């Protein structure tokens, strides 16, 4: 992009792309410079890896190995068959060579906050690898073949969602796609993994973008990056120029640097001007968004033939001596990464996964790095400390100005307090993206997002209860109609029975006389019932006695 074009794009005139204004947003200090000081570091092989496969609730797990097996690097270990759609699966590969020591449930550093099934790999340090599949020319492949290759490499959304990349492309297969957006905005404070990746490996990112464009057969491909990242922008410009000379037609678009510019719907709006309506997918409007990390993983899978076994993870926070970006092996523990960054444990106040605004506290420091772990913060005591005093809402309206979805946070707060679910739904609580912008600007330090999260969970349980009660209501109606039917038929039966009764009785008595071991005999049944009742009575008496004895002893 020439300087003239850049000025044009900033002014929103001329032929080049220009970003459009989106609602709300905040400009928090970025804290990215600490981790961007050094290059992306390869990590030493840890003694043990816990490779997450997935939670058992989300699908069925098919293991290719058993405990005790020796595995090579890049070997496929298992795959998670998602229960929602039968044919989608996420395979998992060995990040290094070693022996599988166990398969167990453990905490994983991702947004589910639940234990997942992990394959525990005792590494041997030799790092012997399987030969990589010969790199085929992706330009020769049809889009279905590209999608299959992406699926086989086990690539998921690296931005944090963790949705299988191949499925995302598949979901848009029926639509004519206008636009593929590669999301390099990375607007949240502390996270610098994408920026570091672009700075050093822009060619890979751009090639990955081209592959994704071919796979999803999108007409245009735009890489969107925040304007506050000059080094990454320069690297991308060079890479795009080099690629345009061969085949590609990727374009670069600078979006204004504000939080949350990188949220999917907000990014689409600022790139294309389309506002995706509530409850609809971008694919329905001919747009698809992939993260830069995903794009780089696709490049690795298709060009190098390397499955997804590592990712770039930012390690930051005051408790670390040297914050930096690591090419972390999937499955290494968070604590191991902190150790090699020189953590001072006495300084650490808490451990966060993700950025400072949407980050979650990790349930355990031994959690394993997953494919979606983009940032880990070992926060010091005066860093991101929770506000000590929550004050009353003064209705200043800052939150409404900051909300990127144009909700009314103070109204939502009032309705959340009174658990007014119908009003909450009417005011669009379910469209809240939980970005934390309202929290950030609130002068009364009200933890709005966590309140909304609770309300969302309450509404969801309420809805499932409603579904359940609908079934019960139906069952009750069936029951009533059955009873009514039986009543209607009853008179005819009572008339019929007296006529037959004597004969039946005599038959029974005759058969009783003839055979003592009659299966259905009234006497036997009544004897059994009497015995059972006596048993229960005896048990009740005993328990009563025991209770009275206890009382007396007291």
């Amino acid at each position, binding site marked *: 992009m020439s300087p003239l074009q850049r000025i044009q794009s900033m002014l929103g005139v001329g032929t080049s792309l220009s970003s459009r204004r989106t609602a709300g947003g905040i400009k928090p200090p970025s804290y990215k410079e600490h981790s961007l000081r050094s290059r992306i570091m390869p990590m030493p092989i840890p003694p043990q890896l816990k490779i997450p496969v997935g939670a*058992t609730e989300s699908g*069925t*797990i*098919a*293991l*290719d*190995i*058993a*405990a005790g097996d020796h595995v090579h690097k890049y070997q496929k270990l298992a795959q998670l068959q998602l229960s929602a759609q039968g044919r989608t699966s996420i395979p998992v590969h060995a990040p290094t060579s070693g022996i599988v020591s166990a*398969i167990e*449930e453990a905490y994983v550093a991702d947004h589910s906050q639940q234990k997942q*099934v992990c394959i525990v790999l005792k590494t041997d340090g030799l790092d012997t690898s399987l030969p990589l599949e010969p790199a085929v020319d992706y330009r020769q492949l049809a889009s279905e073949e590209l999608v299959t290759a992406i699926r086989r490499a086990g690539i998921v959304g690296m931005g944090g969602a963790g949705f299988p990349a191949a499925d995302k492309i598949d979901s848009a297969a029926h639509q004519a796609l206008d636009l593929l957006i590669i999301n390099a905005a990375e607007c949240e404070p502390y996270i610098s993994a994408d920026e570091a990746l672009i700075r050093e490996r822009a060619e890979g990112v751009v090639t990955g973008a081209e592959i994704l464009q071919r796979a999803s057969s999108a007409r245009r491909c735009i890489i969107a990056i925040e304007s506050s990242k000059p080094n990454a922008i320069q690297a991308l410009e060079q890479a795009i120029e080099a690629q345009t000379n061969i085949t590609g037609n990727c374009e670069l678009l600078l979006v204004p640097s504000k939080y949350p510019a990188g949220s999917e719907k907000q990014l689409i709006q600022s790139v294309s001007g389309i506002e995706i309506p509530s409850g609809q997918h971008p694919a329905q409007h001919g747009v698809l968004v992939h993260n830069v990390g995903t794009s780089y993983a696709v490049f690795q899978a298709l060009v190098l033939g390397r499955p997804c076994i590592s990712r770039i993870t930012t390690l930051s926070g005051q408790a670390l001596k040297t914050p930096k970006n690591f090419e972390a092996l999937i499955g290494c523990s968070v604590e191991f990464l902190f150790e090699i960054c020189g953590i001072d444990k006495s300084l650490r106040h808490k451990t966060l996964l993700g950025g400072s605004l949407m980050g979650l506290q990790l349930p355990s420091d031994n959690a394993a790095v997953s494919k979606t772990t983009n940032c880990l913060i070992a926060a010091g005591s005066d860093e991101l400390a929770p506000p000590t005093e929550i004050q009353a809402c003064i209705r200043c309206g800052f939150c409404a100005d900051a909300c990127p979805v144009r909700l009314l946070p103070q109204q939502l707060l009032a309705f959340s307090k009174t*658990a*007014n*679910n*119908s009003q909450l739904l009417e005011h669009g609580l379910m469209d809240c993206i939980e970005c934390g912008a309202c929290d950030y600007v609130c002068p009364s330090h009200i933890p709005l997002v966590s309140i909304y999260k609770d309300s969302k969970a309450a509404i969801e349980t*309420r809805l499932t*209860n*409603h579904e359940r*009660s*609908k*079934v*019960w*209501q139906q*069952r*009750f109606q*069936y*029951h*009533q109609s*059955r009873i009514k039917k039986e009543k209607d038929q009853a008179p005819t039966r009572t008339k019929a029975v007296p006529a037959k009764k004597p004969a039946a009785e005599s038959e029974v008595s005759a058969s009783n006389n003839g055979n003592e071991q009659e299966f*259905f005999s009234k006497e036997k*049944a009544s004897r*059994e*019932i009497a015995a*059972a*009742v006596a*048993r*229960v009575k005896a048990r009740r008496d005993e328990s009563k006695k025991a209770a009275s004895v206890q009382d007396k002893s007291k």
Partner: protein
Amino acid sequence: MLPLNTFWLVQLSLSGGLILATSLLLLKIYKYLCYQLTAQKSLVKQINRILPQTQCGQCGHPGCLPYARAISEGEASNRCPPGGHETILELAELLNEPVLELDPSHGQFKEFSVAVIREDECIGCTKCIQACPVDAILGGPKLMHTVIEAECTGCDLCVEPCPVDCIDMLKHCEDAPVIFSKIHDIQGARP
């Protein structure tokens, strides 16, 4: 031709206005009556939708729909223990009434639980089957009974009639131990 003086003009306009006003009034009354009729019906429906549908009868009515009808006719809306505070809140909002506490004479709020029959103690008397309001118990005379867990509303009605006390109300829990058995199954079935 009539002498079209001021008097006649006033007369005409007045009578015209009167006719218009009465017809509008009649229309309003008709609409109001229609609204009242449908509102009464839909109110029962709306109340019934809020009620938890356990059909437990703790409110004193044989099922949730009769209670919904009673509420629409003015009965207190705080007599549903399984619904708890949330149901009372929602009903109060719907009916525009003050929020009351749960009436303790109709029972206490309990967490949702399902009936489970201790099967080796069951004598097959079918008394629980007759008591169950949603036909969630399966069994025959002198044969063991069992509860279809997915359809049990946790209403407690089957516990009382059982002559041998073999029904427990257990908290409904997602099959926690099954997770590991699943993994072992997969391990065993590997190629």
